[in-house]
Structure formats: C-alpha cells, structure tokens
C-alpha cells in the first residue's frame, strides 16, 4: 500500500460550509437591519394604509400587471428564438448574436432607453418607416407600449439564452431518435423540447418577473405619466421626497412579499433549478423541417437581431460625434479616461468578488443537508433582486455607521454592494456547471482524496473557467453600468462612468453624455468579448477532440 499523501490544502469541510453561511447571514442581517430600522421609525407595520388608498392599490396592481405582461411577451419572443438557435448551431454571426444577447441586460438603463427612443420614438427610424408604410398606424411608444418594448429588449435576450442552454443539454441520442422518427412541430416540442425547458421555466419566469417588477427608470421615462407607477417608484417617492418612512416600509414589505412569495412557490414546487445548466458540446442533429422553415427561421433571427441591434446602433450614431471630436479645447477623453479607470477600480473587484462569493455560497449550499443552513446561503441568490436598494443601503449604513465619512471605505463599500447586486446573476450562471458533475465522478474524487484545493484546481476549475468568465463579465458589467448604488452613498468628487454621464446631463452637455454612453457600451462589448476569449479552453484541447473522435467512434 502506498503511503497516503498529506491531506489536500483547505480540505476541511468547514472551508466549504462556513464562508457561504457567513455571507448569507451577513446579507440577511443587512436586510433585516434596513427593513427593521425603517419599521421601527414607522412604529409598526400597517398594511391597511395601502388597501385604503386608491392610488397605492393602483400602483400594486399596475406593477404586477405590467410585470406579468412583460414576462409573457419576453418568453413568447425568447422561445422561438431559442428553438431556432438550438436547431441551427452553425451559421455566420451566431456567436456574435449570442454576445449581443448577453449585453442587453447589463446596459445602463438611461443609455438603452435613449437607444430605444432613437428607434421607436416619435422621431425614431422605426417609427419613420412605419409612418411611410402604414400612415395612421397609431403607434405610440409612451405608455404601456414603451414599458413592454423596453422590458422585452432587456429580458427576452436573457430568457432566450437560458432557454437555448437548456435546449443544448438535450442528449444527442434523444435528438437523433427524434430526427429518425421525423418528429416536428407539436410532437417534437412535446417529446424533446418541453421536457428540457420545463425545469428552467419557473425560475426564469420568476427572474424576469422580478426584474420587471422592480424596474424603475424605464417605467417612468416610457410610461407616459403617473398612471404607470410601480412600487419601486412609490418607495422612492415616499423616502426621498416625503421622508415618509412608514409608507416606504409598508411598500417595501409588499414588494418583498410578492416577489419573495413567487420565489418561495418556485422553490416549493422543487422546480428550482439552475438557469444556466451545464453546457454540453454536441453536434447539431438535422431535424425534419416544415416547408419554408429555413426561410422563416432566418427571418425570425434577422428581425430579432435588428430588434437588439438597432437601438445599439442609435446609441452609436448619437455618441460617435462626441467621441470623434478630438480637436476641441476640452477633449472629452480628459474626463472619460479617468472615469473609466475609476469605474474599473470598482467594477473589477466587484466582479471578482461576486464570482468568489457565488462559489462560496454554492459550495455552502451543496455541503449541507440541514434545510435552514441550506436556506441561508440560498437567499443571497434572490434577496438582492427583490430588496429595494434603498432598504439595502439603509441597512448597510446602520451597520457601518461610524466609519462612513471616509472616502476609501465608501469606494470599498460601493464595490461590495455592486458585487452583492450581481450575485443573483453570477450564482445562476455558475450553479449549473458546478452541480453538473455526476455522483460517480464525485465518489471517484472522494476515493482518490481529491479534496479541498486539489478538487477545486483539478476538477472544478477546468469545468468552471468558462462559466466563471461569463459570470465575471456579468459581475463587472453590472457594476460598471450601475448608478444607483454609488449615488446612494455619495462619491468623492471624482465620478465613475455612469456618474459622469449624469453629471454631463445635469450640465447640459448632451452630446458629451451621448459620447459617454457609447463609450460605456463599447467598454461592455470589450469586457464580454475579452472574457469570453479568456474563458475558452486552450486551443490545443479543442482541436484534438473532434477529428479523433470521428476516427474512432466510441462504442458504449
């Protein structure tokens, strides 16, 4: 018998369990503190004020109504797009389209909304075409139309990506059988696609619902008037302008109840599953097409691409003059570059932090069987989505009160909150691949003593580098475009990119602001591109697989 090698570093189970528990507990305490302090100021929770006010009843109703519609429409668009992308795995521009689909979620709202207005607004190109072809069409962006359009723009690509990943996990053998039997339409859906999508749909719907439920600037800019008011707007109003803590607390609790209840339902049905399952490499299987299906699919993807790209193009056209004007006395880059540096200083740690925290949280969830200890880290994946930032901010403030005057701490804090806000997304991205190892492999690893650091290095790291790169991109991009958190705490005079954008707007520098918006967009494209290139496995591994597998088919 061989002598056993010394135990792997960090192989004590506590290393997997405790950091995630601590993180989870910290977040729960934070929210409890924030909410608690508001409730204490309020002197109790009186939900009846909401039910007695026609205005507030309307707000709750409208918030739910628009979120439901947004979910339905986003999924309705995402489904055919995902099916088409799953069916056609090779065509020029496919991976570019996938990149763009990752992008829309992380665009700062004010930039995206400006692009959407540039296309679909009263003076937009799209509307111009509509005017030419269908005079008297009655299209009006402002109102429910605009809210839904913007929500679809933000969420349909996310939903389509998630669905696509699920469809890609369908075992090739099942697809081959479907191909041999010539299944299509309803039966293809019923026997192959629906079983693959069903597990992600509840979680996906809940996610999109939550994002639309808490949507703020979109609703106000495109909603047309106070008839379109969401709970988050009402909370903001109560806190910032009326200093009405009781009302804000009540509204925040309602928001927590509705979104939290929804997630609780998803959990209870045991439907909770990862949004991005482990991705498997498989070749496309030719499925029996309908007549003209190729043509229709191409048209669908073209329309979808235009839907995503035109607003981006509008942002580009609007911002380009400012970025190209190099000869003016005050070059725009004098502010852009330092602001970019500052944004990166916050966004990079935030991105890395949220990836690291997500891993700790997931490890902790996997390590324990105790339902309460499982629940604590699990909440971190959802709480940041449904807790109004102002509640979170208040909590943090009370927690860290004595030290807040210091700017350094302020920056660290901003990075911290940003990484917290990105957690739900990063966790969703990492969960599938992390849990994707089958039980046999885990047992083999156990027996071989591949534990702790070794297990991470040899087993998980190669599996996770790709999703981690994507998670990192989301983490960085979300904090890059974030304005809310930094504004909450106050920044030193030096602005980050989104703050710079608002400062320029506040000072009438509209074209410079458009330039900043474009710059931010390009930076996000660059971050996603770079990280997806880094996350790809080294080229020699990729190349070796295919030809040899073809030479020597494996018989199972």
């Amino acid at each position, binding site marked *: 018998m061989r002598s056993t090698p010394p135990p*792997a570093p960090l192989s004590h189970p506590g290393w997997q369990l405790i950091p995630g528990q601590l993180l989870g507990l910290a977040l729960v305490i934070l929210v409890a503190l924030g909410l608690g302090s508001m409730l204490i100021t309020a002197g109790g929770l009186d939900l009846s004020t909401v039910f007695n006010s026609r205005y507030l009843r309307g707000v709750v109703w409208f918030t739910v109504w628009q979120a439901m519609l947004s979910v339905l429409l986003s999924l309705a668009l995402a489904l055919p797009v995902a099916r088409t992308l799953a069916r056609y795995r090779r065509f020029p521009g496919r991976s570019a389209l996938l990149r763009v689909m990752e992008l829309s979620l992380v665009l700062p709202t004010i930039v995206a909304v400006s692009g959407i207005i540039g296309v679909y607004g009263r003076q937009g190109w799209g509307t111009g075409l509509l005017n030419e072809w269908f005079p008297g069409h009655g299209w009006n962006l402002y109102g429910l139309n605009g809210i839904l359009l913007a929500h679809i723009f933000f969420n349909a690509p996310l939903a389509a990506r998630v669905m696509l990943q699920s469809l890609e996990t369908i075992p090739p053998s099942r697809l081959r059988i479907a191909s041999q039997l010539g299944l299509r339409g309803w039966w293809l859906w019923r026997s192959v696609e629906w079983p693959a999508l069903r597990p992600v749909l509840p979680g996906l719907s809940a996610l999109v619902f939550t994002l639309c439920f808490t949507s703020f600037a979109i609703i106000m800019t495109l909603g047309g008037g106070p008839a379109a008011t969401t709970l988050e707007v009402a909370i903001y109003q109560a806190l910032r302008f009326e200093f009405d803590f009781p009302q804000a607390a009540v509204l925040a609790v309602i928001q927590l109840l509705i979104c939290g209840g929804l997630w609780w339902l998803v959990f209870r049905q045991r439907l909770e599953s990862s949004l991005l399952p482990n991705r498997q490499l498989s070749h496309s299987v030719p499925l029996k097409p309908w007549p003209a299906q190729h043509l229709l699919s191409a048209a669908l993807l073209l329309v979808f691409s235009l839907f995503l790209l035109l607003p981006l193009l509008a942002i580009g056209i609007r911002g380009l003059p400012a970025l190209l004007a190099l000869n003016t006395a005050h070059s725009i880059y004098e502010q852009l570059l330092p602001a970019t540096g500052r944004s990166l200083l916050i966004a990079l740690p935030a991105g890395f932090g949220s990836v690291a925290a997500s891993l700790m949280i997931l490890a902790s969830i996997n390590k324990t069987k105790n339902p309460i200890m499982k629940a604590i880290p699990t909440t971190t994946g959802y709480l940041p989505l449904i807790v109004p930032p102002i509640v979170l901010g208040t909590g943090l403030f009370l927690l860290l009160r004595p030290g807040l005057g210091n700017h350094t701490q302020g920056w660290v804090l901003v990075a911290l909150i940003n990484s917290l806000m990105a957690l739900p997304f990063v966790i969703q991205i990492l969960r599938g691949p992390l849990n994707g190892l089958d039980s046999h492999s885990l047992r083999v690893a156990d*027996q071989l003593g*591949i534990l702790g650091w070794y*297990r991470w290095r*040899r087993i998980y790291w190669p599996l996770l580098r790709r999703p981690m790169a994507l998670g990192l991109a989301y983490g960085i991009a979300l904090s890059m475009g974030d304005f809310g958190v930094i504004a909450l705490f106050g920044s030193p005079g030096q602005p980050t990119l989104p703050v710079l954008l608002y400062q320029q707007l506040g000072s009438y520098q509209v074209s410079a602001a458009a330039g900043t918006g474009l710059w931010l967009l390009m930076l996000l494209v660059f971050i996603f591109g770079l990280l997806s290139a880094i996350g790809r496995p080294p080229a020699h591994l990729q190349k070796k697989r295919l030809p040899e597998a073809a030479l020597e088919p*494996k018989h*199972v």
Partner: protein
Amino acid sequence: MFDVKHLCFRYPGQTDGWEYHFSLAPGHCVAIHGASGSGKTTLLNLIAGFLQPDSGTIHWEGKAIEQLEPWNRPVTTVFQEHNLFEHLDVATNIGLGLHPGLKLTPEQTKEIQQGLERTGLAAFGTRMPGDLSGGQRQRVALVRAILRRQPLLLLDEPLTGLDTEAKASLRSMLLEEKSRGVALILASHDEDDRKLLADHYWNL
C-alpha cells in the same frame, strides 16, 4: 485479511435492510451475484465509505476502517462507467490517483507511462476520455486503480457492456493483481467472470 462483521445497513424509509458478514484473504476474489437492488452496490459503497453503516465493523489487518473517510480507506473502486473525469486527459486522470493534487515525482510519471504501455494505451496519455472506446476507458480506470496499490479492489460490474476482446484484456489485468496479493470483490452478472476470476461466489 479483510473482516466484515455484522455490517448492517438500511436505506431511510425502507423496512428491509442488509447484514453482511464475511472475511476475505489477500489474493482472493469473491464474486457477488444478484438481481439489481439485491445489495451488491450497497455492499461496495459501504466498504468504500460512500455509505455509512448503521452498525457493524470492517477491519483490515486488525484495524477498524469503517469510520474512515473514503480517501483514507485501503480500497479502490472501479465502477461500470463514469470512472474518468471527462474534462481531464487520460494521463491526468491516472495521475490524480497517485497524488490528489497531481504533484507527481518523476518515478510516478514514469509509472503512469508504463501502465499505459502495458495496457496498449501508450499513445493515449494526452487524449480526452470522450475520445476513447468503452473498453479503453475501463482499462484507463483499471490502470489508475492498480497504480494506487491498495490491498482491496472493489469492482462494480466493471466489464458489463464491453466487447469480448476488451473483457479478456481487463480480466488478465485483474488476474495479475490477484496474483500479487490484492483482494478483489467483484459485483457481476457474468458467468464467465465468476469462472475465470472468482475463488468464492455469493448469490445475494
């Protein structure tokens, strides 16, 4: 000597359980046979430490091992499939059996290469498991198991589903281990396995 004494196990929520009681000398092989659900895999998992027994003891050379973690037990398991990490190449898969952090001495690297050569896989060290046939994959798993040099090999239908040729080569590898004094517990449906490898035979 492996001594399993009154090892009892019951899955939560089930009324019936199992009790195992036997000894196995070095260099001997026992084949266990039984319908699925008869407790073959359960026994192997108990010995390997993937499951915790309700009561009873497992001793090796007089030392109790039933409380040890899987990685500290003097056993190596070969499953029917999923023995290899799909994302790591063949040499790495074997190397992780020698040191869980892949910190290999030059001798160990040589050993791996020799092991691959002996099994006709010399050129496969840098291949990914997905490129290998079922028989080749099991040979890799077995090379790793052998190089670990643990005194007890637990074989959970390792030959099921392989073609005749692959079976023959794996059997000869197992016989060689036996002759070196390694004890084998083999769960198998296969009449031939029993005849060619086993000294004892139980039907569960």
